[in-house]
C-alpha cells in the first residue's frame, strides 16, 4: 500500500445498488468503484433514474446495498454501528424535514445530537460548533426564523449548516442545487468547495449541473449503470465519457469548453 492510499477514507468496490423486497431485487446500477480522499469535492452525475440518489442513500446507509463493499477508513460500512456512523457521515437529503416549525438554530443544533448526553443538553463546545456552522453558511441573521419562513435556497443552507454542525469527515448531499436559480446554485456549490478545502472533508453530492461540476469538482462519478467512469473532470473529458451520457442525436459535448451543445 503506497502512501497515497493511506488517506483514503471512502471507498466503494464492485458496488451494486437497488431495492430489495422480500421476493425480488430491483437492480438499479452495478460495477460502481471509486475512492475519495479527505479534502475532495466529488459530484455524482448521470441521467434521471440512473440511481444517483439511490447511490447516495446507500452510501449513507439509509438503504441497504445489493452487493459489493463500502469502506470508511478500512472499516466495512455494514459493521459500523448507527451511533458510530453518526460521527462519520452527515447527510442532506431531498426529502422535506418533518417539522417546518423548527427555528434555524434549533435545526442546526440537532446536528450535535451524536455528541450530547441523553437529554440532548448542549455544551459550550456544542454551542460554538453550531455558531461556526451558521456563520460559515451565512445564516446568523436568520437564526431565530422558523423553517417555513425561509426560501428554498436559505433552507438548503440551513440543512448544510446542520450537516456541518454534525462535524463529520464525510458529508453527503442529494441534489443540493435543485429548485435554485443560477446564482444560488453557484453559491451553494462554491460553499461546498470551500467546506471540502478549508474543513478538509469529503463532500459528495449528486447533481444535474454537469458543466458546473466539471469546473468545480476534484473528481466526478459518472453513473451510467454499467461501467460508471470515475476520475478527474479532465480525465473523463479525455476519455470521452461525457459524450455517452445523453443520446448523441439530441445533445453533444464540446470537450474544449467543457459544455453541452444542443
Amino acid at each position, binding site marked *: 500500500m503506497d502512501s497515497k492510499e493511506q488517506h483514503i477514507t471512502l471507498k466503494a468496490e464492485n458496488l451494486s445498488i437497488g431495492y430489495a423486497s422480500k421476493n425480488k431485487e430491483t437492480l438499479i446500477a452495478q460495477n460502481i468503484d471509486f475512492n475519495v480522499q479527505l479534502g475532495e469535492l466529488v459530484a455524482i452525475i448521470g441521467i434521471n433514474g440512473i440511481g444517483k440518489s439511490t447511490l447516495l442513500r446507500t452510501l449513507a446507509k*439509509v438503504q441497504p446495498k445489493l452487493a459489493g463493499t463500502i469502506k470508511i477508513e478500512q472499516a466495512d460500512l455494514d459493521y459500523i454501528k*448507527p451511533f458510530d456512523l453518526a460521527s462519520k457521515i452527515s447527510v442532506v*437529503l431531498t426529502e422535506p*424535514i*418533518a417539522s417546518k416549525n*423548527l427555528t434555524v438554530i434549533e435545526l442546526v443544533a*440537532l446536528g450535535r*445530537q451524536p455528541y450530547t448526553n441523553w437529554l*440532548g443538553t448542549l455544551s459550550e463546545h456544542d454551542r460554538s460548533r453550531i455558531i461556526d456552522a451558521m456563520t460559515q453558511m451565512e445564516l446568523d441573521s436568520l437564526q431565530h426564523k422558523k423553517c417555513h419562513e425561509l426560501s428554498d435556497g436559505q433552507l438548503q443552507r440551513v440543512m448544510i449548516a446542520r450537516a456541518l454542525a454534525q462535524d463529520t469527515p464525510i458529508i453527503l448531499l442529494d441534489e443540493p442545487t435543485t429548485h435554485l436559480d443560477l446564482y444560488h446554485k453557484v453559491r451553494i456549490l462554491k460553499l461546498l468547495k470551500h467546506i471540502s478545502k478549508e474543513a478538509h472533508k469529503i463532500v459528495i453530492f449528486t447533481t444535474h449541473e454537469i458543466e458546473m461540476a466539471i469546473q468545480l469538482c476534484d473528481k466526478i462519478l459518472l453513473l451510467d449503470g454499467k461501467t460508471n467512469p470515475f476520475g478527474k473532470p479532465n480525465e473523463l473529458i479525455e476519455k470521452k465519457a461525457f459524450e455517452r451520457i445523453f443520446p448523441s442525436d439530441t445533445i453533444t459535448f464540446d470537450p474544449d469548453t467543457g459544455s453541452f451543445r444542443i
Partner: protein
Amino acid sequence: MLLMLVISFTINIGLGSVSIPFDELLNSLFGNAAEKESWDYIIWNYRIPKAFTAILVGSGLSLSGLLMQTLFRNPLAGPFVLGISSGASLGAAILIMGTTAISGLLTFEFVNDLSLAIAASLGSFLVLLVVMIVATRVKDTMALLIIGLMFGSITAAIVSVLSYFTNAEKLQRYVYWSFGSIGNLTWSQLVLLLVLVLIGILLSILSIKSLNALLLGENYARSLGIDLKKSRYIIIIATGLLAGGITAFAGPIAFVGLAVPHLTRQLFNTMDHKVLIAAVMIYGAVLMLLCDTLAQLPTSAHVLPINAITSIIGAPVVIWLLVRKRKMIF
C-alpha cells in the same frame, strides 16, 4: 404556568354542587378541620380525587398527543383522531359487555379496575401497532387519518353488535363509561392511574432526544445515530399506556390530546421536547381542570359529561388554528 395550575386547581375544588366557603376550603386543605364534617368529606373524598384525576387525564392525554404528532409527523394526530381511544373503547366494551365471567370479578373492585385498564390499554396498543404498520407503508398523512376514522367506525360497529346481545345493566355501564367521567375514581384507582401515567411520562422523558431527532424525519434521525426501531417502540408503549390507561379510567375524552400540543406551540417559540413535554402537561392539566369546572357550573346540581365540554372547547380551537394559520404545521 405552575401558578395557573394551582389557581385552576383551587377553583376546581372550590366549586361544586355543595357550596363551601373559600376560607373553609383552605382550612380543610391545610389539615385543619372545616366547620362541617361533611365539607371535609366532600373535599377529601370527592373533589380532590376528581381534581387529581383531571390533572392526570389532562396532562397524560396532551402528552400522548404530542408524542403521536411527532412520531407520525402529523399535526392532526392525537389519541382520539388516530383511533387509539376507539381501540381502548373496544377493549373496554369487550371486557364490560363481551364476557360474562367479568360479573364474578365485580366483587373485587381493584382487580376489575386493573382488568379494565389492561383491556383498554391492550385495545389501544393494538390500534397503535396497526396504525404504525400502516404509517410505515403509507407515507400520506391523510391516509393515516382516514384509517383512524375507519377504526372508529369498526369499533362503533362491534360495540353496537355487543350491545345488542348484552343485558341492560352492562350496556348502561358501558354507555356511562363512554361519556367520559373523571369524578368516579377512588383513591386506589387514582394511584393505579398515577402509576400508569408516571411510567408514560418517564418513557417520554427517556425519548426526548429521539423525539427531537424525529422532527427532521426518520432518515435524518437515523443519520444522527438514533436507533429508530427501539425509540419507536418506546414512544408507542408510552402513548399506549397514557392514552389507554386514561381512557380505561376516564372514558374516551376527545380533543385534549389533539388541541393542547398546538395551543402550547403557540405559546412557546420552540420545538424542543425538553420544554414541550413539561409545558404540554401543565397546559393540559389546566385545561382539563377548567373544563371540569365548567362541566359542573351551569346548573349546580347536575354535572355534564366531560367529553361534551372538551369537544365544545377543543373542536373550535382546532378549526380556529386551521383558519388562522391556513395550514397546520407542527
